[in-house]
């Protein structure tokens, strides 16, 4: 076990100076060191995607990234979505479409979708379904998740600044 290192991490706009072991995952840094338990750990081998966060705007599996690899980066977690208290359009659409039941996978899907929509402004439903297949949900059967993301994509596309 090598010595702990100091890293700086900007999470949801807040800068943190944290001392971590090199083997500590980003998921554990977020959950245990920063108390941001909205990022859930479902498999710890990068398949389920429950721990998906945005690192420098890219969706990543926080269970597959070590904290030291995130040094100097900017991370956005589910807690950073509804910043002023009000749920975002995507969060509201998830509720409307019953895109969540137990809610454990939900933060991962939200972050995956936000990362995707930021770079793919007008996806078709087939592409959204393909993208959503990156993460696992055991409760919903996915229809509500796909419908919510498609609806928000269309709405944001219509509202985009011209």
């Amino acid at each position, binding site marked *: 076990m090598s010595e702990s290192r100091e890293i700086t991490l900007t999470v949801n706009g807040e800068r943190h100076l944290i001392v971590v072991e090199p083997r500590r995952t980003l998921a554990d840094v977020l959950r245990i060191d920063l108390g941001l338990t909205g990022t859930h750990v479902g498999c710890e081998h990068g398949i389920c995607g429950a721990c998906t966060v945005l690192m420098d705007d890219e969706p990543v599996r926080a269970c597959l990234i070590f904290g030291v690899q995130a040094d100097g980066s900017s991370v956005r977690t589910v807690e950073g*979505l509804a910043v002023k208290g009000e749920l975002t359009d995507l969060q509201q659409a998830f509720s409307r479409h019953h895109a969540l039941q137990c809610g454990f996978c939900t933060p991962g899907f939200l972050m995956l979708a936000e990362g995707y929509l930021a770079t793919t402004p007008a996806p078709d439903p087939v592409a959204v379904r393909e993208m959503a297949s990156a993460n696992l949900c055991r409760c919903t*059967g996915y229809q509500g998740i796909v419908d919510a993301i498609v609806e928000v994509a269309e709405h944001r596309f219509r509202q985009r600044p011209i």
Partner: protein
Amino acid sequence: MVTLPTSGESQQWVGQPLQRREDARFLRGTGRYTDDVPHAFALHAAFVRSPIAFGVIRSIDVRPALEIPGVIAVLTSADLGHATLTGFLDRDEFIKTAMPILANERVRFVGEPLAIVIATSRYIAEDAIEAVSYEIDEFDPIVAMDDAQRTPQPIHDEAPDGVLVDLRMFNDDELEEVLATSHVVVDETFRSGRLQAAPMEGRGCLAEWIDRDDQLVVTVSTQLPHQVRTGIAQALGLAERQVRVIVPDVGGGFGFKAVLGREEVAVAAAARILRRPVRWAEDRLESLTASFQGREQEYTVRAGFTEDGVLTGLAADIRCNIGAYSAFPFTCGLEPIMAATEFLGVYKVPRYASRSRGIASNKPPSNAYRGVSRPQIVMVMEGLMDRAADRLGIDRVEIRRRNTIRAEDFPYSGPNGITYEPGSYLEALELCAAQVEAAGWRQRCEEAAPGFIRGIGIANFSERNAYGTATMGLRRMPMTPGFEVAHLAMDASGDVTLTSGTCSAGQGHETTFAQIVADRLGIAPDRIQLRQGDTDLTSFGWGTFAGRSLVIGGGAAAVAARRLAVQLREVAAQLLSVDADDVELVNGHARVRGTGASISIDEIAKTVHFRSHLLTDREEYLLESHGSADPSGMFSNGCHAALVEIDAGTCAVQVLDYLVVEDCGVIVNPLVVDGQVRGGIAQGIGATLYEEASYSPDGQPLAGSFMSYLVPTAAEMPPISIHHLETPCYQTETGVKGMGEAGTIGAPAVILSALNDALRSRDAWLEHVPVTPADIQRLLALPTKMESS
């Protein structure tokens, strides 16, 4: 008698697709699952697990692990006083065996815990696992059910032949004669693979001894708070009151958490021994290979039919691979009993006999997984219908029609001893068949691209649920589940707190229970908060499983609400100087019929709490009530149809389209009901085409990650259209029937039916799940009937 607001202006909340009140916290990431519960000083547990499937433990050396800085303790079975859990049925056909909390003398499956390591972090605890050494003398393991016959060493000495439960609940001396004289006897063996429920949140717990309360407080991800309390108290020699079980948000259960695991007991024991808080979160490898599995079953069935396709009798030999131990509290009798009792489904079967066994193996113990034995029995019954239809040249819908229990048959009593209340069995079949035609599936079958083959499947079935004490008592568990008690209290602001012994794992109870109560109190559901999952806060109850919560817990809440409504009307009557019979509760007010006089319910609540001296006629103080429910149990029913496509090149199967007809009685929240149906079908598709907790012949698990245990993704899911029928069941005041398992129950049968339809040109039948591409390749290689003739 149900007290509903009668005025046309009143809002009816039951039946509304209300968005769930749970959603906001889950969407913000502020839901709190067991491993999210903060504790600054908790130690972390990890388990040393056996790499050997079957053997005798010669030694365990924990000393090297204790040298590692940060390791606080390593405990073995002896340190826990050889504590055990024993799930048993009090019947002659059941052999009682104990499950040690930590392996003692023998290991019986790969992953069985040998020792618990307690350290200051999970990282250090896992380091310490590597430092524990042990010697195990290996035996030949029993992996498949037939292995028991050729292995000299039994898994449990109490059961030399490996059979832990052997039930002959249904006998019929005339059945053999009936089968011998039947026009056709369909004689088949069906098999289903071993599954893991795989909720996204694995098991986990946090245990702390609190001196002040003389209590072990165990925060745990479970469906059964009170049964976990009882099990921990029994295993550790504590009084019930000395264990408080708290269940925060649960990240999916599916029956996987309708059990008490040995790990939770070991963590609780460690917390008590060390007098320090200890937490544990299962990782996915542990979850898939070292927790609970289920549904590995084999059905050898003979079914007689007349020339017209009418069932004459059915003989079934059912074997369930129940793994190494009998789980607490539902036991290894769970699958065999359900399979034998509910086998006949929606069909009239004049003669029936069955034997059902639970056979031990060197695999993790079986426990309930959504649907338990029903996905398999429906797969078998529908498979028999398809085979008989084929052999007799009868249309597949028509043969089902001829055997289905009809409206005029209710109440119907079958040879399984169950009396069926009204359902829409034939109506569901007809509606589903009509929808298949309307959707143009036959046309779509013919339009398959070259190299692709399509088929249509249909499955008509019921889902028994909400088993009360009258039914559960027949199982002869030492504790008989079934009733629920709900408490309601309205506070000084007019808000209502409801408690229930049921325990949501994502089903939305906070929303649906509130809808039921709201209608009876004439207030909005957002004024009603459900508190659940705390044995110190709620009355004793039986948790959430088998479609029981909204029926029994919600039924109890309805009774409590009706009683609280009486109190509100009586107080209003005093304050308005009228007769209570003339007061109705509507839109947040107690209103006098015909006069327009009214008082707000908030005002009533305030008066009762703060100015009770005004209520001179009241014998009681405050606004509190309780209600209970204990229905005997009921059947919801449904019919599914699927359109599937086989890629003859890759042998992959895709479900192209899916139709559901569902009858769960009164629907409280359509959003929630459809969500249960869709999610269940996803699990059913997984069980049919992708998932298997497979094992090597030497008992090594082959599916230890989501790379090899293939939970369906969005890409595997078809569009699903859902149609509702509504046949209420008034065993409770709400008319609700349970429905959480229907999706998983119908999907294997209907997909298998569709695959056999697609492959009908070949003289081969699929009679097992999961169906793999290798199975498809084997069948496609067979000559078609035309080629062979």
